[in-house]
């Protein structure tokens, strides 16, 4: 019996060893570049020193949690945390449905050429870096020299402080984010729509369903698994924070809303050389991200969807 199993597994390995050999490279990539660096998570719990390896560094005070306590007693960090949550939440509420709506609109376009053209135009902003977008935003929205405000003034309206008032800045920030990513975001949804069986639409039309009914009862349910997966993935980033977007778009007048965790880490950790503090903050972000990811996945499964694993 045992011998038979052994012979079987030997035969299996003989047959498929090439595939395993091919797996070796990606696995070693993850070990070297993803798992070994995790060793440095220790920095969050230790007093960092450039000349020592993380193993030799001394433990930080308060059972190693010194830097977590420091972060959470730092007013700037708490504000950064609040701003990160605020901006990411608004991004999710307004930014997440946008590509779904756009994809459905694209799908309903009758002229194929026009559809292709608008799609391409909608993808374009994705390829611009935030630095360029921020430069354009300044050219357009600056209070006295921005194009939009000059036009408003010419038409007899007051300038709108798009960038220099906290509330307006948040709106501009979210709107620019949608503008930049909405086209690119449609790709997955359009692919999912293409996978929906056309016979369903035909049958519905025969039964007298109009365009809106088709969208509501066929297209949206067809998109559901894609939407769920993308939603779970984006919930994993709820505490993650981009650096270039708030950093490039921000200015000194809106620091009360534009200072997010990544900017905190940059100012205190990288510029201020407080590596333990910024590692602690980064670890905290990752842990919250993982919790959200698992939570969302469990919730999705509970409601009868497949989730991501």
């Amino acid at each position: 019996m045992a011998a038979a199993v052994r012979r079987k597994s030997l035969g299996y390995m003989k047959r498929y060893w090439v595939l395993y050999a091919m797996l070796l490279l990606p696995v070693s990539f993850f070990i070297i570049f993803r798992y070994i660096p995790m060793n440095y998570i220790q920095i969050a719990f230790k007093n960092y020193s450039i000349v020592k390896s993380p193993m030799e560094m001394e433990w930080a005070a308060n059972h190693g949690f010194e830097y977590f306590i420091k972060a959470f007693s730092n007013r700037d960090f708490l504000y950064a945390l609040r701003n990160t949550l605020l901006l990411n939440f608004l991004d999710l509420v307004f930014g997440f449905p946008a590509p779904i709506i756009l994809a459905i609109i694209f799908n309903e376009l009758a002229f194929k050429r026009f559809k292709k053209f608008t799609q391409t135009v909608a993808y374009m902003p994705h390829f611009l870096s935030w630095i360029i977008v921020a430069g354009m935003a300044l050219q357009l929205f600056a209070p006295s020299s921005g194009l939009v405000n000059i036009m408003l003034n010419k038409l007899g309206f007051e300038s709108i402080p798009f960038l220099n008032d906290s509330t307006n800045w948040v709106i501009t920030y979210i709107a620019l984010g949608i503008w930049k990513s909405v086209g690119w975001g449609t790709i997955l949804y359009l692919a999912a729509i293409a996978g929906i069986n056309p016979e369903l639409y035909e049958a519905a039309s025969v039964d007298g369903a109009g365009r809106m009914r088709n969208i509501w009862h066929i297209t949206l349910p067809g998109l559901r698994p894609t939407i769920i997966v993308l939603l779970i993935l984006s919930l994993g980033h709820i505490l993650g924070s981009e650096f270039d977007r708030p950093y490039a778009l921000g200015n000194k007048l809106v620091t009360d809303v534009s200072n997010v965790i990544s900017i905190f880490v940059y100012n205190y950790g990288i510029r201020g050389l407080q590596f333990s503090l910024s590692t602690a903050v980064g670890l905290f972000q990752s842990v919250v991200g993982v919790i959200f990811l698992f939570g969302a996945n469990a919730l999705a499964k509970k409601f009868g969807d497949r989730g991501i694993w």
Partner: protein
Amino acid sequence: MRLTKFLTILALCSVFALAFAGCTKSKDSASPSNSSAPPASEQSSATPSADEAAAKLEKLGLDANLRFKETRKITVEIYDRGNTGGSKPEDNVYTKFIKDGMLRDHNVEVTFVPVPRWTEGEVLNNLLAAGQAPDIGVTYSYPTIQTYANMGGITDLAPLVDDYKDLLPNLWGYLTESNINWDRDPNTGKLWALEARLNVLNRINTFVREDWLKKLNLQAPTNLQEFENMLKAFKDNASTLLGKDADKMIPFSTSFDVGWRTDHLTTSFVPDNITDKDLYVYGFDDRKLLYPNYKEGIRTLNKWYNEGLVWKDFPLYPAGDKTEDNLMKAGFVGAFIHNWDYPYREGEDGITANLHKLVGPDANYIAVEPFPNDAGVYRKFLSAPVDRKVFFPATNKEPLASMFYLDWISKLENRVYLQFGEEGKTHEKMPDGSFKTIAATDEYIMNSPANIDYTITSNGLDTGNPDLTAKSIANGYAGVDARLIEIANKITTHDGRVGKNAKAGEIKAEEGQGEALSKKRDAFLDQAVVAPVDKFDAVYDAGMKDYLNSGGQAIIDERKAAWEKLYGSETMLK
């Protein structure tokens, strides 16, 4: 089957490659011991007849001319400014001059390690953390060095400068006791960095459009009221001054860095009799934010902003943005406070040259002195005569050779060559003996003004003769009326109070705070300037409170304690 074969070959190849790499490595590690063996025997055989000094040199591996008997290798940090049309910072005419000189005079082989100028801090962090930092490092930020020193990453220079003093005449002669021991800790005696010498203390000037003054029949303002009246006159006469562009008028311009860009204004509100103790205790912020009465200067700017006298968009543009420069070049800006020679810089691309092109040949910015303080003195707070900080990382294996490098680069003839370059290429000698720089475009092009990136122990022109130096500075601004330079050069240090060294050692509370606090300062000053007049106090006070609570107060307290420990009730430095 084919794939299997291919993979097998691949695996075999990689095994060979690894083995080969291993071989070369072992060869590498073997060779130094081979080459270092003979000098060792040479050393022992040559010692007997020498006297004490010679014996010391012998012990250090030097001959009588301070050349190493065996070639030493060091690496030196060099800023990479990424200039368009510039040369490679680590390999050009000037690096060759240094390399040849060091090899000739000290038998030291120098390799330059380029570090991007604008992300200097981050790159140095990485190099230090990876143990690959150059043997000689340079930075403007002493806190960076202090932080790494606390982690054990920096070499203590105290024993080096003391023990080798007689071997380093140029270094000691040029930097002198004062700059060399500037950072020596009074408690521990450790010395983590040498302070380069700042030859020219010129810092900031207040500029106004000379041609506008003439057009409106105004005298150069000599006090705050006159300055304010002038700004109002600019605004009221916008259509006279700018014609159809009248709506673009900016009487006074500033940037997000309000601290720097209102320096003369805020300084005039600081009491004239401020003590050295207060200058030290409240001196952490390099924009003087904590000096007494600073708020009133910002209040003045707030008032002007609300009267429409200040550029409306100033807080939106980040550091390095050219929008404000372009407004000056186009002739829309009436007055501003900035670096002492700001409108005269950059020759053909500069503000003055563009003003001449776009507005007219008589359009010029002229430096004025409109802000007397409570004693009627046009006070300027100048920096101390220190500049960049030179340090050796703990990984430096050649401290003596590195010290020789600093000595060599401090030698007058070497400094002068690096500053002015080759005659006929980058400068010409004027009849009075002064230097006039020429903009070179060929291989002699300098990547930094007067090659300051190479003269790491020196910043600012120095010919060794103060008179010639002053003339050479004035010669340095092509296309700008020498009269304007002379005025700017005179005013910027007039009634100046030069920074002094309290020698109080490390202030623990400052560690890691610099960046976060200066970001805070910029943000709350900007917010206070644009606030409505009746909200100014609330915004400013809230910002200052946050600044103090976030570490500012702790720094003040620790500085105060350090001063009192050293000087007791004394309030002035000798």
